[in-house]
Each structure stands twice: as C-alpha cells, then as structure tokens.
C-alpha cells in the first residue's frame, strides 16, 4: 500500500492512494510516530493559568488544560464563552496577559504565530479564513510554505530542483485533496466554492501544514447532517491515520459525545467542567450553563 514519493516523482505517473499516505510518510521522516505506551498518557499541550482581557472584558479566566498524546479533546460551551479565544491564544494570535503554554515541554507563550504553526499546531477557523483568490490546490500549497525547501531566488529562476520540489509538494497536496474527496474542484478558486467545500478546504489546508496537533474551530458549523457526517469521518480518519491529538470546538452535542475522548466545558471565560462524555452529560454545572439553573437539579 505504501507508495513512496520518490517513485511517484520518478515515474511521473498518476496514482491513487487512500489515506494520506504521502503526508504521513513525509511526517514520519521528520518526527517519530507516537509510541503506543504514550497514547493517552504523555502530555503534548499544556496551558497554565491563562488570563486574557480586552480592556475591561475578561475573556479567559485562569484556564488550565492538558492535551494528551492521541487524544480527541472537545471544547464546548455557549457562544462567547471564550473557546475561540483559547485557540487564538494557543496559536499565538492573541497574547495572554498571564499564563504559560507548553508544547511538548517547550514554552511557546511568546513565540510568533507562524513559528507556532511551523511547530505543528495547525488550526482551522470558525469564520472561514481561506485565501480567496487562490484555487483549492494552491491554498494547500500555500500552507506547505514552511515545508518547501527551495528559496525564492531558485523559485524565480525555476531551477530544476525547485521544479522537482514543486512537483513533490504538489503530490502531497493532491493526496490530501483526494483524501478529502475534493478532486472535482481542486482547480476552482475557493471564493466561488460552496460553504461545505470551503470548510473542507480549511481542513485540508491545516493538514497540508503537517499538523502534530490539530485545532479545529467549529468545523461543522452551519452544515447539514450529511456534511457533518462526512466531516466527522474525515476527522476520525485523520486521527486514525496520523495518530495526532485533535482539539475540537463544536456545538453539536451529538457529534461531540460520539467522537470525543474527553470534553472541556467553558462558560463566561471560565472552565466549568472537564471529563469524559458520560461524566459531562450529568454534570450539574454544565446543565445549568446550557439549560438554566432550574434544570440542573441543584
């Protein structure tokens, strides 16, 4: 099943692969795959005492969280609870006033956004933030930016090695496009795509960046049942093939309860509960946050 990139570029022939083979191969070259015994135990992303305020508005209050190897962590909470803010803080777009974030024992609190992305914390956006003027495949290629090795001068002069590198990267991106079942629209400008496909492109773009942790911000918002099922399948497949931990922000309880290993609940910038899906469903604080205090039975 494993078709090496070398073979593809050498023989220059169309191939069909299933399951992000090329991407996985590319990632395996750079990082060791997580060991079986670490899964569910070793902490890969940790936040300690994060506080974030905009003027007088306290968006995040003393948040602590941990993400373990091979885990699918879901974050839920009402609108405005600070879920997206937390992702923004993790990806370095907002600077927390207090608190530290560690990625595999490395402090990333003060790193630049693009540096954090290069480490492998890749995310999607709640309000689609694609490069609207580029095609689907170019969006993915643009996300490969940190992993493309030639410099801009050889790009401008189009040296053979730049050309080869382009093709190699293109193969990886095409692989992702195949995986996301978007072959038909790969050369369409994303500005003209339907909403669901754009959401999928976002996921593909995060994949193209070689994620070691995938942060998904409401990937299923505004989708119908079929699309949600597709998206859930992709997420599970990624989780399966790449063995990476995933953080998922989602409102659809059904999906969250089905796929998540662990759930964190936010309300008004505070972390009010954490636990397995079964624990969360009966947690009175969660019920009061979602349904009001009279239903919580407290």
């Amino acid at each position: 099943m494993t078709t090496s990139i070398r073979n593809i570029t050498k023989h220059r022939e169309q191939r069909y692969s299933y399951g992000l083979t090329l991407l996985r191969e590319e990632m395996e070259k750079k990082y060791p795959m997580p060991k079986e015994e670490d899964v569910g135990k070793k902490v890969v992303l940790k936040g300690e005492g994060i506080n974030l305020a905009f003027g007088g508005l306290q968006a995040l209050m003393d948040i602590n969280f941990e993400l373990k190897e091979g885990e699918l962590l879901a974050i839920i909470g009402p609108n405005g609870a600070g879920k997206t803010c937390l992702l923004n803080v993790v990806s370095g777009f907002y600077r927390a006033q207090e608190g530290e974030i560690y990625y595999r024992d490395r402090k990333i609190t003060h790193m630049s956004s693009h540096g954090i992305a290069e480490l492998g914390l890749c995310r999607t956006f709640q309000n689609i933030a694609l490069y609207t003027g580029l095609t689907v495949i170019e969006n993915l290629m643009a996300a490969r930016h940190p992993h493309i090795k030639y410099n801009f001068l050889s790009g401008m002069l189009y040296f053979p090695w730049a050309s080869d590198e382009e093709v190699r990267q293109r193969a990886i991106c095409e692989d992702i496009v195949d995986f996301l079942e978007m072959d038909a629209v790969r050369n369409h400008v994303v500005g003209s795509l339907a909403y669901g496909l754009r959401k999928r492109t976002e996921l593909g773009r995060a994949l193209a960046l070689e994620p070691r942790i995938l942060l998904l911000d409401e990937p299923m918002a505004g989708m119908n049942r079929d699309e949600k099922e597709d998206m859930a399948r992709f997420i599970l497949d990624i989780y399966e093939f790449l063995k990476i931990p995933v953080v998922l922000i989602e409102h659809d309880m059904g999906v969250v309860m089905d796929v998540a290993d662990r759930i964190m609940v936010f309300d008004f910038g505070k972390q009010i509960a954490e636990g397995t899906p079964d624990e969360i469903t009966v947690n009175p604080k969660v019920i009061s946050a979602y349904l009001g205090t009279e239903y919580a039975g407290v």
Partner: protein
Amino acid sequence: MEQIIKLIVLGLCMGGIYALVAVGYVVVYKSTKVFNFAQAAMITVGAYALYQALIVWSLPIWAAVLFTLAVGVALGLLVERLLMRPLIGQPILAPIVVTLGLMLLLRGVILMIFGGQVYGYGEHFLPLGAWHVGFVTLPMIQVYAFIISMVAIFALIQFYNRTRMGLAMRVTHEDHVVAQNLGINVKRVFQYSWVIACVLGVISGMLLGNIQGCCVELDVTGLMAIAAILFGGLESIGGAIVGGLTLGVLQMLTIGYLAPLMPGEPIMMVPFAFMLLILIFKPYGLFGLVRIERL
C-alpha cells in the same frame, strides 16, 4: 522670542484652513470609510469657481460665493452618484485609486476650462491690509480666513448635534449595517457626507484662492492636510481641527528654524516625514481608534 510668537500666530491662521480641509477628509471617511484623496482637488475647484463668478462674470460677492457653494454641492452629488456608489463593497484599493484619479480628473477639467494660466481675485474678495497688535502683524485676509474656517466647522458640528440628519450620520459612522436596520437611509447619509465635504473643500478653496491665487497646483495644500489628519486620527473631527492647527504651526516653525539648516524645499518633506514617524510608532495616528482584529 518675538520671531516665535509671530510664526505661531501666522501658523494658527493658516492652520485654520488646514483644519477645514482636514475636516472635509474626516467627514467622508467617517461615513463611508473611503479616504477621499480628491478633497485636495475640491480646493482648486472652489478657487476657480469663485474666480469665474467674481471676476469673469463680475457678480457681487454674495452671489459669487453662493455660486461657488452651489458648485460644491453639485460636485458632491455628482461624485457620490457617479463614482462612489458603484464602488460600494469593492476592496479598499478601488476607492483609493478612484479618488486619486478624481483628483487628476478635476485638475484636467480645470485645465480644459481655464487653461494653465494663473488667476487671482485682485482686490475684489476679502479686504487686504493688516492689523498691528504689538509687534505682531496680523494680515487681514489670513484672520478672516481663520474666522470663516472656524465658523464653517462650528456650523458642521452644530449640524451633527442638532439635526435629525446629523443624528443619522452619527449613527452611520458607527456601523453601516446597524444604521440600515434602524431605518436610516445610508445612501442618503453618504450623499450628505460628500456634499458636506465638497462644500468645505470649496470654502477652503475660496480662502486659499484669495491668499495664494488660482492655480491647478492649489491641491498641494490638500495633500499636506493628510499629514494633519494623521496627527488627529482619521475618525475624529476634533482631532482634525487640532491636527490642522498643529500642522500650521509646525510648518511655520519648520520653515522659520529648520529650513535655513537644510537645503531644498522642506515644506512637503517635513510634514510627511513626521507623519511617517507617527505612523511607525502609532499605526492609527495619534488619537485614532485601534481596532481589535478578530478571527
């Protein structure tokens, strides 16, 4: 010391006109989120319109001024309807290019009508001469210009605060969509903003035409007022007034004290270099609103 006071007083007089021009920029920007580079050309239009009425047609002053204001109103309506409305919703570059182009277009139209000649009002507009206050010489046309500018700005502020349309405009400054949902005719607001800006432009044009003579290069003053806005931030009328006055004084002091030390003509370079510095340290101007970006 005498020198400094003289320069500051003269600078404040000139600053009044800068403030008037700068407020014109701000009015349009606040309502429509378009930065109207063509405001500079409105000055030229005002100067030449008054020339046409006052000197060529020999109208009495009040009629000539009314004619010029009418030209301003008509210009505002035309520009808004023909050029700016089709551009609503286009990326930021489009209005920049169109207003820059409009500046050159108006210059071309004036060249076509009046030729490249330099004209002046002679002694037919505001009285000439000077008042002596201690050692300071106050040129009358300058003082009148300052007073007229301030009255015009004051009238504008009263319009904002006292009238129904002013209220609608203030709402629109905050958010177009909200304003529309409140039943405010946003297009009408845009129209009003353009008309107000053009009228302010032609008023400053009349004053400048009187002080400097009519020439297509009068729009340079308008470009310099851009630097004034950056002192005050793009969205505040008060800031524009302060910025205009500051720019006037700053220019006077620059020329009085810095120019002998530096070669060439520093009048364009110094305000813009200063503006560049401000922009680097305060990216939204000194008093501008800082926007939180969202993902």
